[in-house]
């Protein structure tokens, strides 16, 4: 396949994957937050009010993630036809299980959660909400297992060009899957919490706050900080697990220009690819190689040794720094917001203009952080589909560039329209409250 076709395929695939992951994370985070609200709803009116509003936002994000996932699964076959030929024995059942889990939990519990609050007892409804959160997590688990397996293929052996499963348990629970799932869950909680704060800030600007707003504001501030710390710790763990396995990623992140003993990590640098050195660099901590379990004397493969089997340098390098920088910025903002919230007595009505803008900013930064982090994970593993063995180029489609362009444009139009719609509906719900939508089985 040509370079243009490769870039076009990759853009399409990452666009769908990013869309699905973003809304899956938000759905996951909101599902557990809603379960928390529902648990306390019996005792506190505030939690019930918060539940009633946020369950609608949950429904909005759920439908987006769900609808986009079909495109993602089909693109696995249409853009990378060779993938299933190599890894069908691993990926096929995982895709099937994700569909099955989503089907079972959606059929059994989701309808009862969204439309059955009046007909079910409080305890039964709480249970149903818990089951929806569990089902969402389980569905996400299968997807994360596949993504993690592509970074580090454990539990399967490669023979005659095809992967064969050796141990399902190791494949499902070993490797990077648990940590990566934690990163997704923490990211989802962060997205949910920052979105809740941003929406509350906007809601209380146009009308006086109610008990629900106050409780969301108070708990959202704590959740942001908690999720941020959790994600930072898990992402660091993921990095320590991942780096020794992927020399090309290490070389691009440091950057290590020539093979030999580990070069000193740079905090920030301008890697000049044509001259094979850093135009300027700010040196980082010296002990980093031992921290990620790299041999101190090396040899570590450098970029000069990895021509053709390494990721794009700039994107890999910058995305890692961007993720760290955003985490730091968010931590500062979240700490400030928590302190301000404490000073204001957790009353969102008292928020200043700058305070509201700060909460909005946090929501956007949290989304950007997820994009940078996941972007680093995915781009850093290029050009491989399955790390070390199967490259994306050899499994790519032979569709013509014209068709690829056309579909990419159509995809951008559809995604853009739906994102704009999501934003607009969120604003509408914030402004005028939620629209109750009834559903009657078998009657219309």
């Amino acid at each position, binding site marked *: 396949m040509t370079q243009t076709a490769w870039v076009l395929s990759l853009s399409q695939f990452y666009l769908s994957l990013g869309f699905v992951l973003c809304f899956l994370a938000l759905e996951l985070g909101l599902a557990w937050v809603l379960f928390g609200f529902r648990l306390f709803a019996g005792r506190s009116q505030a939690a019930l009010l918060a539940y009633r509003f946020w369950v609608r936002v949950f429904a909005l994000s759920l439908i987006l993630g769900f609808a986009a996932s079909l*495109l993602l699964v089909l693109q696995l076959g249409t853009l990378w036809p060779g993938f299933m030929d190599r890894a069908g024995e691993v990926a096929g*059942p995982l895709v099937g299980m994700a569909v099955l889990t989503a089907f079972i939990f959606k059929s059994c519990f989701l309808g009862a959660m969204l439309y059955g609050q009046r007909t079910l007892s409080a305890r039964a409804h709480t249970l149903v909400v818990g089951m929806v959160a569990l089902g969402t997590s389980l569905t996400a688990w299968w997807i994360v297992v596949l993504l993690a397996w592509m970074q580090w293929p454990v539990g399967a052996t490669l023979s005659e060009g095809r992967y064969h499963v050796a141990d399902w348990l190791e494949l499902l629970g070993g490797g990077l899957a648990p940590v990566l799932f934690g990163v997704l869950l923490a990211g989802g909680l962060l997205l949910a919490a920052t979105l809740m704060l941003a929406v509350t800030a906007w809601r209380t600007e146009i009308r006086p706050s109610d008990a629900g707003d106050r409780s969301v504001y108070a708990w959202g501030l704590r959740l942001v900080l908690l999720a941020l710390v959790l994600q930072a710790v898990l992402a660091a763990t993921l990095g320590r697990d991942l780096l020794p396995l992927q020399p090309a990623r290490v070389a691009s992140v440091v950057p290590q220009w020539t093979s030999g003993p580990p070069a000193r990590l740079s905090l920030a640098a301008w890697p000049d690819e044509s001259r094979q050195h850093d135009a300027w660099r700010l040196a980082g901590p010296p002990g980093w190689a031992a921290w990620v379990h790299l041999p101190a004397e090396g040899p570590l493969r450098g970029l000069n040794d990895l021509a053709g089997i390494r990721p794009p340098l700039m994107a890999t390098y910058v995305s890692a720094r961007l993720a760290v920088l955003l985490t730091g910025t968010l931590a500062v903002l979240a700490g400030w917001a928590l302190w301000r919230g404490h000073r204001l007595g957790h009353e969102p009505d008292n928020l200043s203009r700058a305070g509201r803008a700060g909460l909005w900013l946090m929501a956007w930064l949290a989304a950007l952080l997820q994009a940078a982090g996941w972007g680093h994970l995915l781009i850093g593993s290029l050009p491989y589909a399955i790390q070390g063995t199967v490259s994306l180029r050899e499994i790519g489609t032979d569709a013509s560039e014209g068709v690829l362009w056309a579909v990419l444009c159509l995809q951008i139009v559809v995604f853009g329209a739906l994102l704009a719609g999501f934003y607009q509906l969120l604003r509408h719900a914030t402004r005028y409250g939620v629209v109750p939508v009834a559903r009657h089985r078998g*009657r219309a």
Partner: protein
Amino acid sequence: MIESLAALLGLGAQDPAFWMPLALIVVFFAVVVAGVLLDGFDIGVGCVSLVAPPALRPRMLSLLGPWRDANEFWVFLGVGLFAAAFPYAWPQILGRLYLPLSLLALGTMLRSVCFEWRLRAPSEHQGRWQFGFGAGAVLVAFSHGYILARVVVAYQPGLGNTGFAVLMGGCAVAAYSLLGAAWLMMREAGELRVRAVSWARRTLRWGAVGAVGVSVVLDFSNAGVFLKWGDGSHWLAVGLVWGTLLLCFVLTEMTLQRMISHSYRASALPYALVLVIVLTVLGGLAYSFFPYLVLDEMTLWDAAAPVATLRLALSAVVIALPVALIFNLWVYWRMLGRSRPPSPPDFRP
């Protein structure tokens, strides 16, 4: 027939490597048929909602409401099952259907999202979401026809084949519109029914072009299929299939004419006849293809995953079946006959 097939593959009829792929392809075909039958009117109503007067559109869409949750899942179940049970067919099939499958996925996405959001949007924007639902339905219908045409000619390239695929895509839009219109005239009276009759009359002949075109091209583009139907021993089946198709099309045309000039009795008849047509065509296609997934290239046993994975897939089917039956299939029991309004909820102090 089963024994001879098994012997041909060098496997016993009791061997899991033989019967498991067979069982799973039957389940897959059942999902496809269920998708076309149960989701078909949904796609069709979406297609015709684009040409309906704006005042009627909200009612048309709300008629679909009770089955939306269940309808969304057929395509997912089909893809999931195909991924788990026949992963090695993905390069040969999905790799060659890039364009129509992308359209299918984007159309499905539009349909799901727009339907859910249209009621939650501010009222001045609801028209846009209704349009999105209709556009998604047209994309899905077109891609179904396109996929069918590509599959039937075994993915041969060429301008003629592409033209045929585009024609079949158009015919599929017509066929789904026919199905949707026939369903609407059974569900509702009044202006909607009058309009549905006229939509059905306009799409009926293009539906016929699609049904005949796909069968004839399949017959003449592949010697094996031609021999299967035309070796003289199947004359009864051949006659029955074409007789059924002809009879159903003629009867539908007559019923529609009658609905215009005389009366609205037997308003469910067109829907039933169109369903018979769809089932006949699908059954004929399945018989022609068996045991190939890609004609003359790949049988379902070539494409099947190893037995351990198939066992997993079969147990997943066994788990999913009761859920589908209890939670999803029973909602369909009221999809026939006149629409009944929902009863108001009990007042609870």
